[in-house]
């Protein structure tokens, strides 16, 4: 466990950007060998704070003390020399180099004459570091070929090779599966045991509580407080984060709101490479979760239902009629909407405005004679209706979407499906990378939409989202249906067990 010896302290740290005080007079400290969670909603100042520690920004006021001595970092290199490593969400790795080359980039071991890189020695040293952390990686693999979790490990190994005493991790688990998260946790604890201090930023409170020794909450650039994990409750932290009491983190299920008639029936459905014989019925106004870890086939099944990848066999009935969905356009025409888990890569249109992002799906219908001119007024009217309904916060319809927060971008993507008269909404990781406040808002919103008759199929790697939000949960394991849970039988332990192949049946065998 952590000592009380102090490694780093900031006093009155302040950073001002035009129009906003990003970090406001923050006194913060990290002890030797502790895991210190740093939480707060988007824009709370966490990122700016760690960028100051990482030498990306110079503070406008206050000081940083390392081992009691005042230090100043004007570059990432200086911060590294002081044994501080910051692992940003966008990794600093070169995809076309191997793991070993990435770890030793810029300080590769040289051969006798100092001219050539001594690959053998470099690979051996890299393997040594990976072994210390018990990372199952081949040092000769190219970074381009490894998973996000493995890249995270490489970043940690790189930090360790610098003999870092403080490693800052910015949402290391945001895009990882539960299993990968376990591995990262193990490594982080291993680091702590070696006396390394960790600042751990996360949107997932559960993680902070499981992993950290102390937790610091930031809000609006200020530090709200630091608590010992052992002496605090999640609700207290959420209260500190949002500044007001959030009674129920999740949207309550509407009592007695009974689901309607069958809307989408999937019969004996299979997809190449890992989805076999899936059958389920989605009812009107129902929120259905399809759960499964990486490799369970949930993602492929949902992509195929939307027509993004071809099916191998089986049948889809929509409103009782048998339909063919070979292309996203077919699905959209039927009224099936899809919101990707990869918001940046396949969701938003970054060069375009919020308005254009939202209406793109319905443009043809908004165009005079389908081909001629877009009817601006009608477009703006329909946009405004959706914007108001989902409470999307923008400075104007012409604002570029990349300048919105993650939560608002997600709302735009949901709005995009709604403007397309969507009856079935397929949502992958609905709240990935979104702060707590916006998360609760999106959950509430989904429940409201379902109460109005929208059917939702969602999948999530966050357990609470699987257990608390949906009306029903079907678990897939290795491409087949493993268990089904209704509201009454929903149980987090059983869902996790089914996901890792330890099915206890749920409602018995799924049918």
């Amino acid at each position, binding site marked *: 466990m952590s000592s009380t010896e102090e490694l780093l302290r900031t006093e009155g740290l302040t950073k001002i950007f035009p129009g906003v005080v990003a970090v406001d007079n923050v006194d913060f400290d990290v002890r030797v060998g502790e895991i210190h969670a740093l939480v707060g909603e988007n824009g709370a100042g966490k990122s700016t704070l760690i960028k100051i520690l990482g030498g990306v920004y110079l503070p406008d006021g206050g000081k940083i003390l390392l081992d009691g001595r005042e230090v100043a970092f004007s570059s990432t290199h200086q911060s590294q020399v002081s044994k501080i490593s910051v692992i940003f969400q966008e990794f600093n790795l070169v995809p076309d180099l191997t793991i070993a080359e990435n770890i030793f980039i810029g300080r590769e071991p040289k051969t006798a004459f100092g001219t050539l890189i001594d690959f053998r020695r470099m690979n051996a040293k890299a393997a040594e570091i990976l072994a210390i952390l018990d990372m199952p990686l081949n040092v000769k693999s190219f970074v381009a070929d490894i998973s996000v979790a493995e890249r995270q490990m490489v970043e940690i190994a790189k930090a360790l090779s610098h003999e870092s005493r403080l490693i800052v991790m910015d949402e290391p688990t945001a895009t990882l599966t539960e299993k990968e998260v376990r591995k990262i946790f193990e490594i982080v604890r291993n680091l702590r045991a070696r006396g390394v201090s960790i600042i751990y930023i996360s949107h997932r409170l559960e993680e902070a509580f499981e992993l950290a020794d102390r937790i610091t909450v930031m809000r609006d650039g200020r530090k709200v407080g630091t608590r010992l994990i052992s002496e605090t409750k999640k609700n207290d932290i959420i209260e500190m984060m949002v500044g007001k009491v959030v009674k129920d983190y999740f949207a309550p299920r509407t009592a007695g709101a009974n689901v309607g008639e069958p809307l989408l029936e999937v019969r004996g459905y299979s997809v190449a490479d890992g989805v076999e014989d899936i059958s389920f019925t989605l009812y009107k106004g129902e929120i259905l979760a399809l759960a499964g870890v990486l490799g369970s086939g949930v993602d492929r099944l949902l992509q195929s239902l*939307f027509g993004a990848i071809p099916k191998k066999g089986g049948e889809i009935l929509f409103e009782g009629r048998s339909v063919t969905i070979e292309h996203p356009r077919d699905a959209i025409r039927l009224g099936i909407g899809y919101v990707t888990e990869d918001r940046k890569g396949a969701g*938003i249109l970054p060069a375009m405005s919020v308005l254009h992002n939202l209406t793109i799906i319905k443009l043809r219908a908004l165009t005079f004679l389908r081909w001629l001119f877009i009817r601006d007024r009608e477009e703006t009217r329909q946009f405004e209706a959706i914007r108001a309904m989902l409470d999307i916060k923008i400075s104007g319809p012409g604002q570029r979407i990349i*300048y919105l927060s993650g939560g608002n971008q997600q709302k735009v993507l949901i709005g995009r499906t709604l403007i397309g008269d969507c009856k079935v909404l397929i949502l992958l990781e609905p709240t990935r990378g979104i702060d707590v406040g916006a998360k609760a808002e999106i959950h509430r919103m989904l429940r409201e939409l379902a109460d109005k008759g929208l059917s939702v199929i969602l999948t999530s790697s966050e357990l609470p989202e699987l257990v608390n939000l949906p009306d029903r949960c079907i678990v897939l394991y290795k491409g087949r249906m493993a268990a089904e849970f209704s509201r009454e039988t929903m149980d987090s332990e059983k869902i996790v067990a089914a996901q890792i192949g330890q099915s206890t049946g749920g409602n018995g065998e799924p049918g």
Partner: protein
Amino acid sequence: MIRFLKLYERFGIFIFIFIGAVFLSFATPNFLKLDTILNIIAQGSYAALVGYGMTLAITSGGFDLSVESSMGLASVVLAILIPVAGIPLAILGGVVAATCVGVLNGLIIAKLKVNPLITTLGMATIIKGVALLITSGKMIVIKQREFLAIGTGKILGIPNPIYIMVAFFVIFYFVVYRSSFGRHVAAVGSNESAARISGVNVDAVKIGVYALVALTAGLASVMRTSQALIGMPSMASGFVLVVLTVTILGGTSLTGGRANLWGTMLASIFIAMIYYGLNLINLQIFYQMLAVGIVLMLALFIEGLRLRFLKAAKAKGIKV
């Protein structure tokens, strides 16, 4: 700096034109005459016309390096058809021939997923070969002198090419900014996978884009062929670079998704001014190539600078 760059994005090309105009009006007593100005604009109209097409291509995240060859093909087809089919049908034939090249480009890029740069570069060579084969490498003299009027005539004292440049500006303005096709083009250029799952028919959009680029090349070829009264299989050497220069200088983002049609038209006029100025001081035609190259580099440099500053601004959390 950010504000400056934003202003530049919108009005930068005016600054270039203004400086060029001031310079030329000192250098030559004739510059400020209406005829001279109209002549310069008419000279710029070809680059503008094909530039509209190129603006679409770059907005869609692509490129078209085959415009010169399409022009050559159109010119040859036109010259062969005039004696047998008459002028209107010959013009149609030439434009259709060019457009077919574009459709082929689009099909290869969309269906076979070949990189646009490679596709159109390869197509450029193939079509140039085809055009040369058709004429056995010779030029075809057009004897129908009335065809001359299309490219050299004037209506109300204004050269015909200017009408065409303006008319197609209006058409493309609506296509790019006001039609669902134009919006779809920008969506494809902005994020292809996102466009696809938003129901955009990405393949059709790409085929449409390259067909339109080739269509503009065909039209430009008709005007040029008319002025020379010769069907030329290898027409307009170096023209593709001029077209790229005016499109990029005009402010259309090379990263896709954002078109600047005004910029393209005005940048074409600016390039024509440079040509005019170089002619005035009796510099050889080779210097024109030099000048275009330098302006292209400059435009790319400014574009790069702009992107860097926008990125820096975003990193600092400044709303742009």
